[in-house]
């Protein structure tokens, strides 16, 4: 499986600059790049200097703009074409794909496309979703543009850019993005030892979980973080989550969890976007701190404060597994 990493972020937030830095890392020389742009004129890929000076066949430009269905079709065609060229030896056997999306793109349909296409799902695996966040204009963009808020909400990692400019208030920026996405790791591009490390896989939740997050009703996107001290039973939890996503999946931008599942020693990591739930990953060890389940829900247009009482009722109320275990 070839990992596909997504680089998203609002217009002018430094995606291409970051991509250039990442591609200069020798460890990332075997990367293929997909660029999605608005309109037919492909400007950005001329800025990707490594690709210009190297093998241009590594680049497939998606011209679907930001309409999710059009993007979906172009992404399928683009990835299939890339894979075909790789299989036929027309391009080097790249080890990963980096997709740079248009500044107005919603990342979710891209991830759905990857999981839904019967051919692609066995060839490409979802990598890390990184959103760039402009230190100078990001706060205003968050306030004005729902696309900017959604990109932050769906990201695994958020990279603060232009923090070297005068007047950048890194603490306020971190607070603003964490109000939207308490599960993501927030990194300053100035602090990253190697830019390519921003796309290395990892469990963002173990470092990026912020239990103090609270619903913010001034935003249409709100999040809630839940801590459970007792091991949870998988059966009632999975029924509850399937029901929650059935009823509110369209509003659920992102769900991440590190779960202490009864009967398992290591943590189980769960990751969902809208109705799409990725297969749980069994991890070897717990992150530092008390061993307990940590769940984050980020939703749009949903009263997220109702989620925790619902989950707790399901785990401890009339659906409790201890009571029902008698049926076996």
């Amino acid at each position: 499986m070839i990992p596909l990493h997504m680089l998203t972020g609002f217009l002018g937030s430094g995606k291409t600059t970051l991509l250039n830095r990442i591609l200069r890392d020798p460890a990332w020389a075997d990367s293929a790049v997909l660029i999605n742009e608005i309109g037919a004129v492909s400007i950005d890929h001329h800025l990707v200097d490594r690709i210009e000076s190297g093998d241009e066949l590594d680049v497939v430009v998606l011209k679907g703009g930001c309409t999710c269905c059009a993007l979906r079709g172009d992404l399928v065609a683009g990835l299939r074409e890339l894979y075909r060229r790789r299989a036929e030896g027309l391009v080097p056997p790249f080890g990963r794909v980096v997709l740079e999306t248009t500044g107005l793109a919603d990342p979710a349909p891209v991830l759905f496309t990857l999981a839904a296409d019967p051919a692609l799902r066995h060839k490409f695996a979802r990598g890390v979703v990184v959103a760039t966040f402009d230190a100078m204009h990001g706060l205003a963009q968050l306030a004005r543009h729902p696309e900017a808020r959604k990109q932050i909400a769906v990201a695994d990692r958020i990279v603060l850019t232009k923090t070297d400019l005068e007047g950048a208030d890194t603490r306020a920026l971190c607070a603003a993005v964490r109000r939207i996405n308490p599960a993501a790791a927030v990194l300053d591009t100035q602090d990253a030892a190697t830019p390519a490390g921003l796309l290395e896989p990892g469990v963002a939740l173990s470092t990026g979980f912020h239990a103090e997050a609270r619903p913010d009703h001034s935003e249409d996107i709100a999040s809630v973080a839940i801590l459970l001290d007792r091991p949870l039973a998988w059966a009632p939890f999975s029924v509850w989550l399937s029901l929650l996503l059935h009823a509110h999946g369209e509003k659920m931008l992102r769900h991440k969890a590190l779960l202490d599942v009864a009967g398992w020693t290591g943590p189980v990591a769960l990751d969902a976007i809208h109705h799409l739930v990725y297969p749980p990953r069994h991890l070897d060890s717990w992150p530092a701190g008390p061993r307990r389940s940590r769940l984050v829900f980020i939703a749009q247009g949903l009263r997220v404060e109702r989620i925790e009482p619902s989950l707790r009722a399901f785990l401890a109320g009339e659906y409790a597994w201890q009571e029902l275990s008698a049926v076996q």
Partner: protein
Amino acid sequence: MCGLCGMLDDGRRWLDAATLDRAALRRERMLRLAIVRRVLAASRVTVDDFEGTRFVLRSPTGATEIVDNLFDLWGRAEKLGKRRIDPLELPG
């Protein structure tokens, strides 16, 4: 169908992925079935296991539907019971 709706038929394997051996899978399935029955009780829709792989739903008027998984089950059960099921509204 848009990109979001298209994914309603995906992302299901996670339900069985937390348990590995066959006996444990069956126990989990039976437990899950018992929980689903309780959730559907207010809708007067009943549910039974069908050959260990699917579910049979029956409406109060006797209409029957076979569904493949929980994701399909909730939508069909809402139609059969003529009642929306929302975990954020269920009694604790």
